[in-house]
C-alpha cells in the first residue's frame, strides 16, 4: 500500500535496525528460551520504548501508523522482540500516559521510555481470561494506602518489569463497576514474580505469574478513580489490539519472505519451485493478497486512532484478521518448504507458526474479537438494552 514518505523512511530505519541488531539473535532466543535484556538499551535508544509517550516523559511519540510499522518490522524478524515492545508500549506505557496524574507520569514513564526498563500490565487472572470482568484481585483501603491481594497470570515481561499496572476490585459492587487500577513496583513487599511459563512460541519473551500478597500500595499509586479500571483497560486493549495485529502482520511477512525466497531458489528438475508448481504460485498469491489486506486493516485502524474517532470495532477486526492471516501464511510457508519446514534450525517458518499462534489468543482471543465486532455491528438493528 502507498505510504507517506515519512512512514516509508521510518520503516526503512526500523527495518535496517531489526535486520542488523535483532534478526541475528532471533533463533537463539527461541531455542534458549531467553529474554534478551541486553536488547533494551538499544531499543530505548532507537526510541522504540516510548512510542506512545511524549518527549516530556522521555518518549519519542510517533503516530499510530508509525508505531504499527515499528512493531511489524520488529516482529518480521523476531516475534519475541515484537511482543515485548508491543506490550511495553501499548499496555505498560499507554495507561500511565493516558490515565495517570502528572506525578505518576514523571515517576514511571521516563524509566520505561528512555531508561530502557520494562513496564507490564496485569489484567488476566487464572479464572478471568476472556471474562476480564471476573477479576478477583482485591484492593482494600487502609489509612494512607491500599492493600492488594491476588494473582495475575500470563503477564508479558513479568519477571523483568520494574513496575506493573494491575486491576483489582475496590468495592463489593458486582461485575466491572468495582474494578480499579494501580501501579505497583516490583521491589515492594508481597510483590512476587511467579513461575515462568513454558510456551509454544514467543519463547524469547518473558511470561510469568504475578502474586500479590498484602502489597501496600500508596494512595497516590491508584491510576484514575475508583471503578474506572474497566473503562481504562477496554481503551488500553483497543490500542493493544492494533499492535497485536501489527505483530501478526510482521510475522506473516517474515514467513512469506522465507517461502518466497525458497520458491525462487529451490530447484526441482533444474527449475525453481516457483516456476514448476502452480500450486505453490497460487499459495504465494493468496499469502501476498491476505498480507496486503491485513496491512490495510492494521494501518486503517491506526489512522482512525490518530484521527481521534472511535476505533474499537476496527481494531478488533484488524487483530482478528491479521492474526488469522498470520497463522495461515506461516502454515502455508511451512507447507511450501516441505519436510525442512518442520525443523527448527533450517528456516524461521517453524518458529513463526509457533509465535503467531499467540496473536489469535493474546489481548482477547479471536472469539472475543468476534464478540466485540458482533456487538458493534448489531447495535444498528437491535433495540437498546
Amino acid at each position, binding site marked *: 500500500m502507498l505510504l507517506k514518505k515519512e512512514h516509508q523512511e521510518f520503516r526503512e530505519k526500523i527495518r535496517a535496525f531489526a535486520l542488523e541488531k535483532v534478526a541475528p539473535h532471533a533463533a537463539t532466543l527461541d*531455542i534458549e528460551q531467553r529474554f534478551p535484556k541486553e536488547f533494551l538499551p538499544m531499543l530505548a535508544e532507537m526510541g522504540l520504548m516510548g512510542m506512545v509517550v511524549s518527549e516530556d516523559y522521555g518518549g519519542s511519540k510517533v503516530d499510530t501508523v508509525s508505531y504499527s510499522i515499528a512493531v511489524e518490522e520488529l516482529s518480521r524478524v523476531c516475534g519475541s522482540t515484537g511482543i515485548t515492545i508491543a506490550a511495553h508500549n501499548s499496555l505498560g506505557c499507554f495507561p500511565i500516559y493516558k490515565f495517570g496524574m502528572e506525578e505518576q507520569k514523571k515517576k514511571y514513564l521516563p524509566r520505561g521510555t528512555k531508561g530502557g526498563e520494562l513496564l507490564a500490565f496485569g489484567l*488476566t487472572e487464572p*479464572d*478471568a*481470561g*476472556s*471474562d476480564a470482568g*471476573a477479576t478477583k484481585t482485591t484492593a482494600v483501603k487502609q489509612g494512607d494506602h491500599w492493600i492488594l491481594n491476588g494473582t495475575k*497470570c*500470563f503477564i508479558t515481561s513479568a519477571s523483568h518489569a520494574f513496575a506493573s499496572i494491575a486491576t483489582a476490585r475496590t468495592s463489593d459492587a458486582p461485575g466491572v463497576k468495582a474494578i480499579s487500577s494501580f501501579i505497583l513496583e516490583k521491589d515492594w513487599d508481597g510483590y512476587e514474580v511467579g513461575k515462568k*511459563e*513454558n*510456551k*509454544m*512460541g514467543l519463547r524469547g519473551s518473558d511470561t510469568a505469574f504475578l502474586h500479590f500478597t498484602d502489597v501496600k500500595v500508596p494512595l497516590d499509586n491508584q491510576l484514575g478513580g475508583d471503578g474506572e479500571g474497566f473503562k481504562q483497560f477496554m481503551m488500553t486493549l483497543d490500542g493493544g489490539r492494533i499492535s497485536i495485529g501489527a505483530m501478526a502482520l510482521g510475522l506473516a511477512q517474515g514467513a512469506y519472505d522465507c517461502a518466497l525466497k525458497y520458491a525462487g531458489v529451490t*530447484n*526441482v*528438475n533444474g527449475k525453481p519451485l516457483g516456476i514448476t*508448481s502452480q*500450486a*505453490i504460485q497460487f499459495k504465494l498469491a493468496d499469502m501476498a493478497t491476505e498480507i496486503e489486506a491485513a496491512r490495510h486493516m492494521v494501518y486503517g485502524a491506526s489512522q482512525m486512532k490518530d484521527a481521534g474517532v472511535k476505533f474499537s470495532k476496527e481494531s478488533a477486526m484488524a487483530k482478528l484478521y491479521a492474526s488469522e492471516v498470520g*497463522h495461515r501464511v506461516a*502454515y502455508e510457508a*511451512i*507447507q511450501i518448504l*516441505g*519436510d*525442512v*519446514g*518442520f*525443523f*527448527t*534450525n533450517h528456516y524461521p517458518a*517453524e518458529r513463526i*507458526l*509457533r509465535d503467531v*499462534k*499467540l496473536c*489469535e*489468543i*493474546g489481548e482477547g*482471543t*479471536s*472469539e472475543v474479537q*468476534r464478540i466485540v465486532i458482533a456487538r458493534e455491528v448489531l447495535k444498528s438493528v437491535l433495540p437498546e438494552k
Partner: protein
Amino acid sequence: MDFNLTEDDLMIQETAADLAAKRIYPNAEKWDEEGKLPQDILDEMAELGYFGMMLPEKYGGLELSTVTYNCAMEELSAACAGLMITISVHNSLCCEAIYRFGSEELKDKYLPDMAAGKIIGAYCLTEPNAGTDAASIKTSAVKKGDKYVINGTKTFVTNGGLAGVFIVFAVTDPEKGSKGISCFVVPKDTPGIDIGAPEKKMGMKASDTREISFTDVEIDASNLVGEEGTGFKTAVILLNNGRIGVAFQAIGIARSALEEALKYSKERKQFGQPLCNFQAIQFKLAEMAAKIDGARLLGYRAAVMKDEGKNVAMESSMAKLIASQTANWVVNEAVQIHGGYGYMKEYAVERYFRDARVTEIYEGTTEAQKMVISRQLLRD
C-alpha cells in the same frame, strides 16, 4: 458395508488404549520436553509385540491386519504421536520392506530380531534435494563383485539414532531414472555410516530424526531388497501403507484434542457459565467431531481395501489428505477453546498443535497427495 470392528480389532485396540493410558500418556509431556523416548518404554513395547505387528507369527510377529494395526496406532498416537511414529516407521515401512519385497535369506536374517524389537528400522528415502520428488535421489549404490558400495546423504530420517538397520534407497543405474533406483538393507555397524545429531523440530519431539551419511559403505549384494531397479516401486507401495498410518496418527491426535477441548469446555467458566454453554464453542466441538469421524471412515476404507489386496494408492492418499488437514484444523480449534492455557506446555493441546503440523508434510505432503489423487482421477 460393515462398519463394525471385529473382536480381534477391538481386543487389540483395547490393549493399546490401556497401555497408552497407563504408560504413555502420563509421560508424553516429559518425552516431548526431553526430545527422546526412554529405553524402558521401547523395551516394554517390544515385549508386548509392538515391533512386529503385521509380521507373520513365524518371525515372532502378531500378524495383525492393516485395520487392526491401525486401530492400535490411533490409540498410541492419541497418547503420544512421537512414540507412535517411532513404532509406525519400524512396522509399516521397514519390516514391511523386507517382508514384502526381501529374499527369504533377508527375512530370516532380520525379521525375527526386528519383530522382537532388538533391531529397530529407519527408512532412508528423502535427501536434501529430493523430497516430494523422490525419484530424483542422488545416493548411489555401485556394484563391485558381490558387494554394493553406497555413497550419499539422507535427511530427516525418523529413528535415525535408534536404528539397527537402515532401509536405504539408492541409484544403481543413473540412466534409468526412477527405474534405476534400488532398495537395500544396511546394518548400522557397517563402516562409513555417519549418524548426525538429533534435529530440533516443531513437534513429534519424542521421536528421533537425523541426517544419515553413507561414505563408501560396502554391503553384501544379498542385502539388495528385491531386484535391481525395483526400489522406487517398492517405496511407492510402502508409502501407501505409511499414508494410512499417518492418517490414523492424525486421527489419534485430533481425537485427543477434541477430548481435551470437550473436558475443558465443561470445566472452564467464563461470564458465569461453562464455555460449553456458548454456541460458538458448541459448533466448534460439533465440527471437530464430524470431521474426525469422516477422516476415520476414509482411513478404515483404505485399510480394509488394503487387507483385501486391492490397490489403495488413491484411497490411502485421500485418507491421509483429509485426516491430516482435519487434525490441524481440530488442534487449532482445541487451542482456541483453551485460550491462553492452550499456548502453555502444561496443557496437552499445545503439544497436539505442534505434533499435528507434520502430518500434512511427511510421507508425502498434502500437495503430493493431491498429485497422486488427481493423476488417478484424470487417468480414469
